[in-house]
């Protein structure tokens, strides 16, 4: 104030343009307000700040807890993933074993089927061969019998027919 008062003076001869008393009262009011403010406001402010700090700490703690929980969950998930991976590997291994077994079975069955088909084919061939031979034999026999019948029939005149009847009567009567 003195320093200020030592500067360039205003219209009232002082550097403050108004009444100096007004300045004093204003300053006093300010100090009163300040004091009241400090008296009434510092406690709640501190409390608020403390509460805020506590809240922040709590939040940080909760965040830490959440982080720890999340980490735990993550670990658990990782463990589960590890289990799942192991299980998957076991399944794959079992599938491979099963596939190998099935492959062996299928190959064995295929070989068995092929062998059976081959045997059946051989049977059919032999049967066909037998049937063909039987047919040929039958045809030859039929042809021979027809030829013999034709020869016999052509040579059967009345005298021979009568002779056959006479022979029959003789044989029946004997």
């Amino acid at each position, binding site marked *: 104030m003195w320093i200020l008062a030592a500067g360039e003076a205003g219209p009232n001869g002082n550097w403050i343009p108004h009444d100096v008393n007004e300045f004093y009262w204003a300053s006093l009011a300010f100090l009163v307000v300040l004091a009241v403010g400090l008296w009434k406001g510092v406690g709640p402010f501190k409390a608020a700040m403390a509460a805020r700090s506590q809240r922040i700490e709590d939040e940080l703690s909760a965040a830490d807890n959440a982080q720890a929980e999340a980490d735990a969950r993550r670990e658990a998930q990782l463990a589960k993933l590890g289990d799942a991976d192991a299980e998957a590997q076991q399944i794959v291994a079992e599938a491979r074993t099963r596939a190998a077994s099935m492959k062996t079975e299928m190959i064995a069955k295929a070989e068995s089927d092929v062998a059976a088909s081959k045997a059946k084919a051989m049977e059919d061939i032999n049967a066909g061969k037998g049937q063909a031979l039987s047919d040929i034999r039958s045809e*030859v026999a039929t042809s021979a*019998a027809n030829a013999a019948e034709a020869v*016999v029939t052509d040579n059967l005149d009345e005298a*021979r*027919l009568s002779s*056959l*009847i006479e022979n029959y009567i003789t044989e*029946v009567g004997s």
Partner: protein
Amino acid sequence: MSDAIAGYADAVLAIAKAEGDPNVEGQLATFAQAVESNEELTSTLADTKVPVEKRQQVIEDLLAGKATKATTAAVSMLVAAGRAKDIPAISRAVLSSASGERGREYAEVRSAIPLSDDQTQRLAAALKKQTGKDVDINVVIDKSVVGGLVTQIGDTVIDGSVRGRLTKMRDAFQ
């Protein structure tokens, strides 16, 4: 022999007895021979599309002057009853029954050619030696016999035919 054939045979014999006609069985056998050897005649007599009266008229025309009234009536009765195709079998049943009534055996002899009276008598004598009974012979002309004779007495068949020998030869070839 079916019951129906035996029944119609009894009916024919009843007609013959009622008319006191001993020629019925022989004339019926002759007509049966004609029916057996003539498919057209058999078809005409068995054709249900042709009115019975017309078929009976055919019989009267065929048998006019060749058969007695009783024989014509018997054949007409068989045709009217739809038994034209069975006439040969009925005739054989009539002959067999008639022979049985006379205490004789009935023999049906199949031959490719007719037998002379002498052959028929000698065959009857020869068959008597086999059966110990007098035998009435009915000769049926059957070209399929080819040569020789086939005799049937009851259930016994004496096959001395060329057809029988050819069949045996054919079987031997098979």
